[in-house]
């Protein structure tokens, strides 16, 4: 497990694998604050994303943390907060 903050490139890769988010869709800039719903990431995709984050970064988000992480920025913040 990497001993470093959970970064945008980590989330990008995980979202590609877990939610099929196209690599060409630049997750950054404005989309960092776009609601997952609007990006086509539904609740199951978010569960799959959380499961991969847990496996790869050792951070297990509970249901409430997950349902409040409705954008990429908030999800990254949540993961990094839990890493501390």
């Amino acid at each position: 497990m990497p001993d470093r903050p959970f970064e945008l490139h980590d989330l990008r890769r995980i979202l590609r694998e877990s939610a099929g988010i196209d690599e060409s869709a630049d997750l950054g800039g404005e989309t960092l604050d776009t609601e997952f719903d609007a990006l086509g990431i539904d609740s199951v995709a978010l569960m799959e994303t959380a499961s991969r984050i847990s496996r790869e970064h050792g951070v297990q988000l509970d249901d409430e943390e997950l349902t409040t992480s409705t954008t990429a920025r908030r999800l990254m913040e949540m993961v990094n907060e839990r890493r501390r």
Partner: protein
Amino acid sequence: MSAAAPVVTGIGIAAPNGLGTARYWTATRAGESGIGPVTRFDAARYPSRLAGEVPGFDAADHLPTRLLPQTDHMTRLALVAAEEALADAAVDPAEPGEPGSGDLDDPGARGVVTASSAGGFEFGQRELEMLWSRGSEHVSAYQSFAWFYAVNTGQISIRHGLKGPGGVLVTDQAGGLDAIAEARRQLRRRSRLIVSGGVDGAICPWGWAAQLTGGRLCTGDDPATAYLPFDERAAGHVPAEGGAILVLEDAAAARSRAAPRVYGEIAGYAAGFDPRPGTGRGPTLRRVIESALRDAAMRPADIGAVFADAAAVPGLDGEETAAIAAVFGERAVPVTAPKTMLGRMYAGAAALDVATALLTIRDGIIPPTINVRPARRHPIDIVLGAPRPAPVRAAAVIARGHGGFNSVLVVRAAGTAPPGPGTEPARGTHHARQAV
């Protein structure tokens, strides 16, 4: 909602001898086989090593990347076929309230009913392997639905905004017909459009192991002698993937939105179940064919082609040809089994046969049964080797599912319903209707 038979206004096909209706129909008319060695997994150590696989299918070419992590191979095929069928029907159900669409903007007016036999077996196998080898935290969240029988119905519904009735029929090979019949029921209630049919496939070690236990898979490595229904050499079938998705519409609804094409009507249907073995009672297939004809208010002589189930199990073949001969007369109707080019695709097979029957009606060409040298004991006229030109106004599709399911569906050219009891009279003949 109108009492007239529902119509088929769109067809989408994924078959081992061609992806897409045009490619499939060109290949099928020419008698081109899609059966070959299994490529989806290493089948070398299994007794059965041939399959009908949809050629050159790269899901990423056809579907948004978002759908890839969450779909089994057969669901991807189903989504591509559904998209083709809806485009063919020139209807985008997700766009409500088109002028002239009638009640299409009513969310309850459009739905999906498909057939399934095993669900997403390949997906399920992969996740079970993860569970056993690495632990539950490695199992995909999508396993919650991707393996499931109803998954094609759900994914088609979500993708195209079909929010009305949703359902799935699981009756093995009979499912493709049973799903269309359920779609017809929904269209007789308040639905205007139902996407129906079936696409199936489980060409993976788990699916293979399950099918091998059924004892009906043929062995051998020669595609030309593997699946030989009605032949003395008949020794089981080749499994296949694929099927067809159809757009079914209420006839008046299709007329009011000026649907670009009507392939034909779902004229009649019946289903029956064989008695338990050992009871001494015979199979129900003959009665099911007769019931379907009665439901269509048609006589045996009205049927221009029969699409056989073609189990390639000698006893089952005998039952089927005896039933066909009993209803239609010996060698009185052309019988064909395009499955001999494809293999058996379980819940997808009969839906594809319905699509093929409609294309046969459209073009007046009955596609051939290939490779087969019919045994003399089968008193039927099989369309062998080459396509047979014939003006077909109506066709019957027979489908039999493992365990005793028998279903028969009759399709006919639109607007050719014969007069008689049970049929909807032509417009402007209200008096005749009252007389009945």
